[in-house]
């Protein structure tokens, strides 16, 4: 995409409190696609990638968030076909959300300050849509001590502040 112009990201200054046991930072830009299809096979044939079949499962950059819905979060420049005339829907949502990386031994605890699901028992490699208090997020467990949190752009500063508050 254009090198002429500067990207503009929501106000999400990094946080790494002294001995807070958690660091919070904004991830690099990504290509994001919403993929929808009744039949995962049709989708796989179209994009030439295997997609996870179970809700909550991930496969590489692809997370299955619903019975007919997937989210791809890949490196910038990744382009998917539009899928015209096929019973699928592929929509570029690269800039709809940003990703907050919550890392460190207290990462799960800090997220659970406002996220009501049991992240202690949320396996590495799982991803799900849920909420942090009233704000919708997608939680993706990258490692034991690292979570990726996808949040719509305009909610990101609030979420970041809430996480910092919980970490402090």
């Amino acid at each position, binding site marked *: *995409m254009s090198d*002429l*112009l500067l990207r*503009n990201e929501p106000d999400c200054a990094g946080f790494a409190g002294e001995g807070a046991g958690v660091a919070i930072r904004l991830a690099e830009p990504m290509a994001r696609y919403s993929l929808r299809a009744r039949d995962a096979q049709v989708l796989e044939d179209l994009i030439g990638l295997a997609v996870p079949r179970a809700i909550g499962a991930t496969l590489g950059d692809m997370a299955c968030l619903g019975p007919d819905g997937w989210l791809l979060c890949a490196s910038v420049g990744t382009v998917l076909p539009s899928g015209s005339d096929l019973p699928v*829907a592929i929509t*570029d*949502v690269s800039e709809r959300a940003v990703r907050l990386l919550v890392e460190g031994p207290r990462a799960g605890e800090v997220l659970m300050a406002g996220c009501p699901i049991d992240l202690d028992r949320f396996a590495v490699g799982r991803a799900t849509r849920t909420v942090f208090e009233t704000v919708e997020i997608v939680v993706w467990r990258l490692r034991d001590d690292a979570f990726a949190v996808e949040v719509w752009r*305009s909610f990101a500063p609030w979420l970041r502040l809430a996480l910092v*508050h*919980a970490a402090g």
Partner: protein
Amino acid sequence: MTGFRLQLGGRVDRSRTVTFSFDGVRYQGFAGDTLASALLANGVSLFGRSFKYHRPRGLLAAGSEEPNALVSVTRGPGRFTPNLRATGVEIYEGLEAVSQNRWPSLKTDLGAVNDRLGMFLPAGFYNKTFMWPRSFWDKLYEPAIRKMAGLGDAPTEEDPDHYAATYAHCDLLIVGAGPAGIEAALEACGTDKRVVLIDEQDELGGGALSDPAQWAWLADSVARLEQAGNVTLLTRTTAFGYYHDNFIGAVERLTDHMTQPGEGAREKLWRIRAGEVVLAQGAIERPLVFAGNDVPGVMLASAARTYLHRHGVAVGKSVALMAAHDSGWHDAFAHARAGVKVAAIIDVRSEVDGALRVEAAALGITVHLGSSVIGVNGRHRVNGIEVCVGGRGAATRIACDTLLMAGGWTPSVHLWSHSKGSLAWRDDIGAYVPDKPNENVRCVGACSGKWDFGKGQVIDMLPTPRSPARIKAFVDFQNDVTAKDIKLAVREGFRSIEHIKRYTTNGMATDQGKTSNLNGLQIASQALGRPVVDVGLTTFRPPYTPQTFGALAGHAKDALFQPLRKSPIDGWAEANGAVFELVAQWRRARYFPRGRESMLAAVNRECRAVRSAVGMFDASTLGKIEVVGPDAAEFLNRMYTNPWKGLEPGRCRYGLLLKEDGFITDDGVSARLAPDRFHLTTTTGGAARVLNMMEDYLQTEWPDLNVWLTSTTEQWAVIAVQGPLARGVIAPLVEGIDLSPDAFPHMAVREGTICGVPTRLFRVSFTGELGFEINVPAAYGRAVWEAIHAAGKPFGIVPYGTEAMHVLRAEKGFIIVGQDTDGTVTPDDAGLGWAVGKKKPDFVGKRSLARPDIVAAGRKQLVGLLTDDPAEVLEEGAQIVADPNQAVPMTMIGHVTSSYWSEALGRSIALAVVAGGRGRMGEALFVPMPGRAIRATVSGMVFHDAEGARLNV
């Protein structure tokens, strides 16, 4: 230390002296003291004044059930806290506490006149009077009653503290860390269960803390729990509510006990989801009901033992016991063994366990069986009691400075009841105990009715020779509810315990009846001559003890209260002096004043620029939905009022969305990008609602359709460039799109790039001028905005805000859903009949448009309204009448929905809904304002460029 502190014993740290003050007097206590124990140690017996009669009151209890000893604590600006129980306030260096509900002082309180007048102020007295003369109520009586209200003073400053909150999950949650709770935790030690053990006190142990014999076991057990690894221990934490599916609310108090609170949160709200819950909340000792049972120095026997053993404080120099239960005897023995004089043991029972009598004799304690206390001497402190046998005959006086009460025990079934577990009545203990659970929960220890305190006699009131009507025998100490109040309620026909509670306020004080409910129930049951179970039980409701608003609000404070959504271009607007308005969750630039320019001047300037040159507007907050799939057109055709199948790719169409009831709920211009791909727009406030509504129809009614919806509101920043010079401004920046009028007509959409950024370029207009709405990926919104702004400089481009946008669209008669419509407006009402597909067999809301009232004549219709005086700008929301001289209530035939000064027309304009409006063209109507009526004429809705010539250039 002298006074009542024992030389030895207690769990307080005698090496750490703590200085604090109460009502301005400085005292010293030890680390580990509560305000209550420290004041007792200093010989203080008077702690507060009761709510209604302002009677002097001392300590009744040692725990969170305390009804009397309420104090206020101040610790610097904004940190004043009323109504704290002295039994729960841990002392720290410099603690400042003051008593409440008294004037001028605790010792001399003028409010105590109510006590003298008590006979005229029975339960419900205010229902019966203050009615005459009628005019006195508003002016005199009611203000006077309100003046008497309340206990502690109200806070007056903003709380500087902040609060935390969290969710937590565990397999086993144990509430109450007394012996039973600790045993339950020990069983789970070292298992793979995640265990959480909660206790409201500052250290684990519960009742064991008052029993030195258990201290060794306690220390060992706590050590094991701390080392276990799978057990989380939460002290100073109160589980206050038990909600659906084993969801428990608890508040942890983090800083109130500290000398230096520091930066951390004051309290933390724990929202715990538990697999299994074990309730080990223990039991609360019951007071006995007799004349004078509220004199300072009369207290629960178990509380006295807690002060004795846990704090090393004797509650008196000479202690008597009034018992109906064995447990009190043991408490009295403990005092005797600690060297405190026990003046007498009086027991209402004529027979007690022989072992008790033997031990009493061994300790040299006089025993009066089958007797009762019928009076207490002293006002600010007990100095003696009157005892008589069987409540008859002559009374003997026994000198003492303290009277202990042992009335038996009430299991704490509060949380059990919150969880909707059922209760069973037990006559032998005169209390309700847990019966059938409603969740995965069990009760252990005293709260299940099992204890080793011995036996007792259940009694409603101690026998007395005096007329029950003449004595004040208290049941609810804080609210000053006496036995005779409860009997009066029954006499007046209140039979349900809920009625009796509400009529007398028994159990409605800040202790929520922990010590009064069961006695009240017994007395009511006696008075009604019906068994307790027939009288019922008042419902237990959260919270178990009062919890701060701050903790329950959690982190939702200040900037975290609610997200404020900002567009990608918001930063530029802020830097350029925009004045904002709040719309739904968003803030939007309302206008861009230059220097000290007024709103009107700024808006006029912004409008002039758009009409004569070019303006730019941030439309990013508009909702956007990408509709994709082979059946996309079919789906939209079913949702919207107008036809969509025929729309060519590359073209746009105005869409009107109804609710199934036929009323307008949203609108927006949408584009067909490809045969199977649409880019919808919705109103800013409607985005989420519309998406949910469309998903509902798609998933529930038409699951056969191959089409999917994706919110793209935040994917795209939207920049509207509007005005005769708009094309010239963007032309140099746009690549891959032929902008010429023929190649790119009004209501068309093209994809290309602008400033090298991919764009979905709409040629649409909400202003009536040549216009483009430029969609670019959100991250580039601001940069593209700035590039256009720079490119527009030579053209005199002006950024405009929502206010100018409103004026410009009103000049063209374009409606704003939610302003010109209000949820009761149909397409025809709004003059949008043209947007309803006449030939369509169905669409959402169509059937409702055929209902009798919707097709009836005389409905309110949206029209234009022009004031006779062109300078007169009507007030939005102003009502419209045909005859301004009619009497109130007037017949209103409509109201003004939009009204502005139109710079383009050099006069005011307005939109209004008027009954039968379109049939009234040219008719003069009136807008009555205070003191005058404004004359205006009904007109069409399009005030500017009616033929739309300016659009097609």
